[in-house]
């Protein structure tokens, strides 16, 4: 590692506020779409290395079986990936939530994962992009893996980057046993640009 990036307290607070607002808007839209109340955690923001992320993930959920979906986004020099991790106990409730009445085979679960991801990522990223006055292009979401151990979904050793800005948000849906974690990971070279964008909000 050539140098270690840090994020000043000021920027961190600002980014947390931006994420909070975006999440609030997202939660409101989600509540209307899904007809249920969305409980969000306060976003946790940190600059992490791949190994740190793996560790952070492990502290989220010690369970052996999770499913994950990722989606890349890029725009105006800011690039990153959103990763959504579901506890495997969530599937039956996810199906109920999205009004799925088919049998839950591997294919249906994949579809559920993708649909939920679409809804959660979209709602959140759009809110953030709007506030910092940007628009992002999105790649198609990819299923990272189904019913696997966390360390099989994300292997830090094969990562090609050294550090990244990670925002972690936990979602819970009232009345449903759905518990998932959203990680917004911005690449190292995006951080400078993001801070410039945040400067407009701070000034």
């Amino acid at each position, binding site marked *: 590692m050539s140098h270690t990036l840090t994020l000043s307290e000021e920027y961190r607070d600002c980014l947390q506020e931006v994420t909070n607002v975006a999440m609030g808007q997202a939660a409101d839209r989600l509540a209307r*779409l899904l007809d249920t109340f969305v409980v969000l955690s306060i976003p946790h923001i940190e600059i992490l290395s791949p190994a740190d992320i793996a560790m952070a993930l492990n502290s989220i959920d010690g369970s052996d079986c999770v499913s994950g979906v990722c989606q890349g986004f890029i725009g105006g020099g800011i690039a990153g990936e959103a990763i959504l991790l579901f506890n495997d106990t969530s599937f039956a409730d996810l199906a109920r939530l999205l009004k799925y009445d088919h049998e839950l085979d591997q294919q249906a679960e994949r579809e559920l994962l993708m649909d939920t991801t*679409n809804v959660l990522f979209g*709602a959140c990223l759009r809110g953030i992009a709007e506030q910092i006055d940007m628009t992002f292009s999105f790649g*198609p979401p990819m299923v990272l893996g189904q019913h696997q151990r966390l360390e099989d979904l994300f292997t830090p050793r094969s990562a090609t980057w050294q550090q990244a800005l990670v925002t972690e948000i936990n979602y819970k849906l009232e009345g449903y046993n759905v518990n998932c974690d959203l990680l917004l990971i911005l690449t190292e070279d995006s951080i400078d640009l993001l801070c410039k964008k945040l400067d407009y909000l701070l000034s």
Partner: protein
Amino acid sequence: MTTAPKEFLNEFHWLMDVLHNIDVGLVVLDLDMRVKLWNGFMQNHSAKASTDVLDKSIFDLFPELPEAWFRRKLQAVTMLHNAAFTTWEQRPYLFRFKNYRPVTGIAEHMYQNCTILPLTDANGQVAHICLIVYDVTEVAVNRMQLQKANAQLHQISRTDGLTGLLNRKTWEQSLRNEFKRFQRYHHACSLIMFDIDHFKRINDNYGHPAGDEVIRRTASILQSGLRESDVAGRYGGEEFAVILVDTDAAGAMVVAERLRTRIEASSVTYEKNIINYTVSLGIAELTAKITDPTMWIDTADRGLYNAKRAGRNQSVIYHT
């Protein structure tokens, strides 16, 4: 003043040209699901001209489109003002189109990724929906072939080439697993080890290809008589092994005798020679006295040794 509209018209013209000719499917729908734009890609692949589809319901035009699912997607797009995606892994296609390469391609239809975008009007309200259809047949076919190859490699690494039974390494893994299960649950479990009597004589008299045929036949008789839970493997040259789950020694004896008599009654014809042969079998039920998987094999092997010594073509239980 008069040049500006003309310039605008020109620009509009070539923009439309691009939309029309781009090799990606573009469809615009209004909120009643009526088609408002249908570009060249969609026209060519669906064999439906713009005039055939404009202002008609997409569900009437394409009954294969899963309406409930599609409407749910569109609802999310209009409510969240955000793009939705479907990939070929999730749903192979939205519109059933022919593969772009009908001659050299191997896919029956086009695999598609789709992006569904909300289009806002001047007031910021979502009034239309845009579908972008990408042809990802090549990617999908490559991925599926890779998965198939991996599955084949996995299969090859686990099985014995001549007989298709589990190879020794994989079978021994099953044996260790079964042994662990026994230590936890103490259900009855038996092991049969058997080999072909005077196999060397078959090889010497009829040649090695004949010997191979005898091994193959033995494996096929063995496999046809097993339950799904039984685990059969080729242990060595002419030696075979079967784990019988939930089976005590008496039950294993029934299985062994059935196998022995079927092999005795069958014959292998190789280059006009009719080869009759027999097998000897040793049986060991797992008990608390057997302390590791190797000892379990040894015990069954002792049964097999006793069967040989008693004149071959028989099954012997070795009691621990």
